Each structure stands twice: as structure tokens, then as C-alpha cells.
């Protein structure tokens, strides 16, 4: 659900050492950060290493490994988190971004991965 609304249109930006975009959890509620098992970002067909990904909400930034033991913060329903990828940066212009999230849901008998792909433009 809300798969096609995960990546926020027009949100691609350059940051020091890489790029960022805004992402939402495709779910009818939020989740505590310890239940986000993985965030995988693919740029123009190239999967970015897990170690290069950072997740930021409300002024706090985490690596994906750190998130696994964060019990006092959450990715709220519809909340736009900043997904940062420290890959050295992107060239200006259009890029195909795929954003895949694997999350642990207590009541589900499986661990879902949901993804969205959008073409986002990086301003020169």
C-alpha cells in the first residue's frame, strides 16, 4: 500500500559526500526504527552499499546498523524521512532512484520488502 508514494517527487538534493531524497514508509501506520531491517537505494541500476545509507528524521541521523537497536524513535505514518546516500555525489540531471524498504511487522507471517522507483532530477 502507498508503494507509489514512497519517494517524494522533486526531493533529490546534493549533500556533502553524496545525495539525499525524502522517503515515506509504505504502511498504514509508523514503525519503531528497530523494526526497519534494511533500506536499499539503487541509482541508475547500481545498488548502493548498505554502509553508505543514512536515515534522518526530526534532526537525528542514523546508520542502518544503528537503527536496529533504536527503541526511542520511530518513522511515523506518512512522515518524510531524509534518506542520505554517501556515494560521493551524483551528476546534475535525471536519475532513476529505486527505494526499497524491508520491515519487520509483528503480526505478519513474512517480512515484507516494498519498493518504489521514480525518476528524480538533480539541479545543476
Amino acid at each position, binding site marked *: *500500500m502507498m*508503494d507509489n508514494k514512497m519517494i517524494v517527487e522533486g526531493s533529490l538534493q546534493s549533500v556533502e559526500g553524496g545525495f539525499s531524497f525524502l522517503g515515506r514508509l509504505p504502511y498504514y501506520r509508523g514503525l519503531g526504527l528497530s523494526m526497519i531491517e534494511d533500506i536499499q537505494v539503487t541509482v541508475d541500476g547500481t545498488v548502493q552499499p548498505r554502509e553508505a545509507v543514512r536515515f534522518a528524521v526530526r534532526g537525528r541521523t542514523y546508520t542502518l546498523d544503528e537503527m536496529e537497536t533504536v527503541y526511542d524513535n520511530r518513522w511515523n*505514518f*506518512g512522515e518524510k524521512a531524509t534518506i542520505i546516500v554517501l556515494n560521493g555525489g551524483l551528476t546534475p540531471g535525471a536519475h532513476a532512484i529505486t527505494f526499497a524498504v524491508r520491515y519487520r511487522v509483528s503480526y505478519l507471517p513474512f517480512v515484507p520488502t516494498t519498493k518504489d522507483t521514480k525518476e528524480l532530477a538533480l539541479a545543476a
Partner: protein
Amino acid sequence: MSSAIKRGVSLYSYQNETFQGKMSLEDCIRTSAELGARGIEIIGEQTFWGWPEYGAADADVDNWHRLIAQYDCVPVSHDFMLDYKRYKGREMPFEEQVASVRNDIDFGARLGMKYIRALVSIAPEVLVAAAPHAEERGIKILIEVHAPLHFDHPWIIRHAEAFEKSGSDALGFLPDMGMFLFAFPPVWKERFLRLGVPQAIADYVVKAYEDRVLSEYVILNVQQMGGTGPAIAMAETLRHNAAFEPKRMLDHMSRIHNIHGKFYQMTEDYVEPSIPYDEIVKVLQQGGFQGYICSEYEGNRWIEDAEEPNSVEQVRRQQVMLARLLGETEVPSLKTPIAA
């Protein structure tokens, strides 16, 4: 004559709009109130950012009470989640689960709720252990009986037995009407067709559902018809859904306090093509139910790949249907459009 059964809305119904910030909490409550659906149910952590990990802000809770009063609504249920898989690789210990439920009991009371909803996968022992705290706070904990589970399933019977043995009237059931799925929902079929399921297979699955064929036979037949991927997934929905009978609620009426008015689609002529609301309302009236039927629109996820859901219109149609079935003379209608 109007019925003792009351109408409400679970704000889950408006998720497509609230997720995108197109409807505020005030829009949700005002819309429901205008439709005469004055019972308001929420998933606490959907409506209140922060809950439970870093808590709901007092200002947000004050705003909730202000809106409930302003629109003359009634807080019905806080649906809690209890993430017992919070820790990677190990389940949350029993005492911590009970403490977590107590925390949600307190939150329900803070919101003025009568009930809190427990997901069906929670163990009866956890709820029984939390019951004394619920009694103190004037809250009932209702386990949601939801497809594929149903009132004759051993897991639900275990809950019923544990509730009786506890002697507590703070434990009960919240049946989700999706378990009475008497026809394969058209919006499901259309979605599977868009995913590439051959028409002949889609037609077969719908007919097999109508004929009440055992899910495993349907899956095998679809495989033998050459079905792969989405065709198998379509057949597998029969593992998780079945046309159980609404009258199975009658044995449990003393513990049924709230109803999820699940629906996947309301047509322009006010019909839910897959869930038998006429029969459901008759059974609830026969059982003396006096609580709320809360709209729970779940068609959004089945159509969003093709069109933007219009949750408000879908809820309006269901409320018109419910008002009719309950013998109300006034037709629910909206007065205030939602600002885009």
C-alpha cells in the same frame, strides 16, 4: 424506527488522504460527523505521531478532545499494535508485552476511549494479565477477530475460553466483517487482471470462490491452467479469506462491543459487492448489539495503482447503506467539501 446500533468511522478509512497530508484530523472528524457517524475509532499510532516509542504530545491530545467536543463525536476505540517483534531475533518477553498493553490502556483512557483493539496474533495470556488494569481504567480490551481467523477457529476459541476463565468483563471481541466475504471482491479481480492474470484464470478463481471450493484445490487448478506469479497469488487469497457465516457471532454477543465495518468497494448504488451487510445487520440486531459499526475502508490498496482512491466518497456510500439497513430515515450527506 431507528436501531440501537450506532454508526462510526475508523479513521484508518482515510489513510490514503491522511498519509499525503490531504486531510487533517479535523477533516476526518468533521467528515465523519457530517455523515452522522459520530463514533470515532483510530489506530493510535497512525493518528498520533510519536506513539508509542516517544509518546503523544499533550497538545495533540488536547486537540483531539477539542475536535471530538466541537463535532459532537464519541471516542470509541484506540487500536493498538503491540510490536512484540521489536527486538531483532527474539520475541518481547511476556511481562514486557503485558506492560506494553497497560501503556496502551492508559493511552486509550487518556483519549477518552471505551475500548482498545488488540491484534489477533496476541496471546490470550497477555490480555488476561492486563485485564485488571483495564478494569481499573474503565477500558475493555477487544481482540480483533479477522480473516483468516474466525469464531470457530481454535485460536479464537482459546481466547474465548481464557476470557471466560478470567471472569473479567474487560476482555472481549471486535469482529472484522471481512471474515464474512461471501463473494470475491471485484476490485481484487481487477487488480489481478492489471497484474497480468489471464482473464480465464481470473474468471475461474471468482467462480471457484462462489462455489466454495477448497483453496488448495483452486491453487492446484490454477497451476494446471498454466498460472504463474500473480495468478497463483490470486488463487492464494482463498487461503486467507472465506465466507464464514455472520450468525457465528451470536454465541459471543456478550463480549462483542465494537464492529469493524470492513469494505473493499461501495458501488454508486450503495452496495458492497462482497460483504453481506444486510445479513450482518440482521444478525447484530438479533444479538442485541448496541455498539458502533465503524467503517473500515480497505479498497485503497487494491486500486491505488490505477487511480487515486476517494476514501471520503467510499465512506459516504457505506454510511448511506448502513443508515438504510439500520432503518434511519435521514440519508447521510456531506456538507463541507475537503479542501484539496
